[in-house]
């Protein structure tokens, strides 16, 4: 187990390094430059030159990359061109909202998805099954901004239950979490259904029936844990989509999280912020997937890491 951990942590670091190179290159390929953005259209040659030197943009790209990474390893992701705060400060300021949003939508998506999937599997080929799968399809297919607007229209505008936008405690995260979690719920429902159907046919379920187990015991004690093994993989992978979805959702609901930060940073060509955020999000996704892999051993005793 410990040698496995060392191996995994090593490959995780390599992955993050690869991501950093990609992020760096993509940012320098984006047209537009931050100097123009900061100084405006009427800047003099001299002031442009001066700012370039101050921001270190006069150096070659490999040199910029190495000095950036050297600082990054020490926990310094640079300073925002626009706000003047360090990128680490920016992230720390905004992470509570995105973390809550990710957590709530993950919990909402997983629970809804698993419940719907189990119902669909148990009631296979009935109207409940078809309804559940239709719902899942809508969840997967409907774009986040559309769901967001629909929910705002219904729950905020018509029913006046939740705030339309902005952040003011838990209530303002309910609609965004549902928006973000619906896609996850749809994918998880489909996976749970097919996985449950597969498990229900297994010999050990017949054994459990022959022991005198009732329906609920069969579903929850005997089938679900087996059926959840592939579902957990999916939940891990969904975390990446969740991060991407957070960008749209936070923008629509005007939540001051990492997603809306990245949107504004891109539009102002705030290179350090964009870079730092992308690197941070990539690292989070990699770590979450690592944790999911470790969770397997808890769900399936046949899996042992060496």
């Amino acid at each position, binding site marked *: 187990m410990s040698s496995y951990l060392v191996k995994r942590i090593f490959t995780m670091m390599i992955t993050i390094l690869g991501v950093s190179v990609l992020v760096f290159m993509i940012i320098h390929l984006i047209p537009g430059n931050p100097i123009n953005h900061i100084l405006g259209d009427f800047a003099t040659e001299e002031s442009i030159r001066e700012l370039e030197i101050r921001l270190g943009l006069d150096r070659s790209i490999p040199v910029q990359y190495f000095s950036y990474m050297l600082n990054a390893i020490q926990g310094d992701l640079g300073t925002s061109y626009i706000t003047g705060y360090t990128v680490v400060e920016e992230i720390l300021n905004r992470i509570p909202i995105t973390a809550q949003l990710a957590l709530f939508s993950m919990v909402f998506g997983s629970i809804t998805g698993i419940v719907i999937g189990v119902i669909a599997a148990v009631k296979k080929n009935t109207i409940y099954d078809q309804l559940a799968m239709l719902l899942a399809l809508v969840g997967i297919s409907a774009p986040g901004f559309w769901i967001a607007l629909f929910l705002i229209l219904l729950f905020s505008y018509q029913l006046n239950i939740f705030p339309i936008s902005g952040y003011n405690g838990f209530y303002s995260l309910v609609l965004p979490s549902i928006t973000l979690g619906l896609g996850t719920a749809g994918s998880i429902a489909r996976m749970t259904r097919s996985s449950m159907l597969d498990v229900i046919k*297994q*010999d*050990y379920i*017949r*054994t*459990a*029936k*022959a*022991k*005198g*187990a*009732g329906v609920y015991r069969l579903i929850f*004690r*005997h089938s679900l*844990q*087996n059926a959840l093994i592939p579902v957990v993989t999916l939940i891990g992978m969904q975390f990446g989509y969740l991060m991407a979805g957070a960008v749209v959702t936070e923008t629509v609901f005007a939540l001051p999280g990492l997603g809306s930060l990245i949107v504004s940073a891109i539009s102002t060509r705030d290179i350090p912020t964009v870079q730092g955020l992308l690197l941070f999000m990539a690292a989070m996704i990699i770590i979450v997937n690592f944790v999911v892999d470790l969770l397997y051993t808890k*769900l*399936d*005793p*046949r899996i042992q890491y060496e």
Partner: protein
Amino acid sequence: MTSELLKIENFQISFKDDEAGTISAVKDLSFHINEGETVGLVGESGCGKSVTALSIMRLIEKNASFTEGKTVFEGEDINLFSEKEMQSIRGNKISMIFQEPMTSLNPVHKIGKQIGEVLHLHGFANKTNSIEKTIEILKKVGIPRAESIVNDYPHQLSGGMRQRVMIAMAMACNPKLLIADEPTTALDVTIQAQILDLMNILQEEYNTAILLITHDLGVISEMADRVIVMYYGQIVEQADVRTLFKQPKHPYTIGLLNSVPNIDSENESRLTPIDGNVPNLGVIKSGCPFRARCQHAHAKCHEENPPLFKHESQYVRCWLYDEQGGIV
């Protein structure tokens, strides 16, 4: 005086098939099992043995329909029982072991938990003493290091050990009837013998009746008191084990016995297999289903399916025995 424990009356089991409509898998099946008796149910794959076993427990798949029949167990027709009542019988008064020990145990639960569950379900143990009782049962089925095995997962055990665990689970509540569906088929020969021995020992101790389903005549000769031979969803012969092996009557039974090597036979004659294959279910609409593979088939066999004739203590479904016995 032995009393009747289970009586199957006029079982009709059919499956719904999208293409072929309704396919009849078991036709007019009746037999009984006495207390403490071992009845062997023999036949080739697809003859309806396993379906019969599953329908006694009412564990049959949803697309199967049970059109007729009574399952009288301890004097009550359990087909009329509610699902809840049935659950209290399964694993308790009637239990079952299956062919595949490798896949019949839940891979994510510990052995102790799986055996403890059946004790718990039927009130034979509570939370505090279930581990204790489980260990006791595991020891009884000959599992070494039972104290540590309770904390193992199925994948950590061999096939033979897993089948012992299945037997432990089946015998945990001291059932009246054990249905064993090909319990040794997936095991190698030495383990087979051990498992059969174990079943014999437990049967003597608890006076459990066993319905032993197998295609292996060797297993039958060792274990069964009485044998039922099935072909194409119906009983073709029924007799006590000695009579069946000494004087098989139905051409199918004779064929089965001839296709098994016999170490005592003096002339080293070749084995004679039964010609042809078992016809697919639903293909034969009239006449004796065995006629195409039978050397003795005559005109009447094509016209009419024979009833079960009683011939001394033996029952046989063949026109050859028409005049000799009375119809049952």
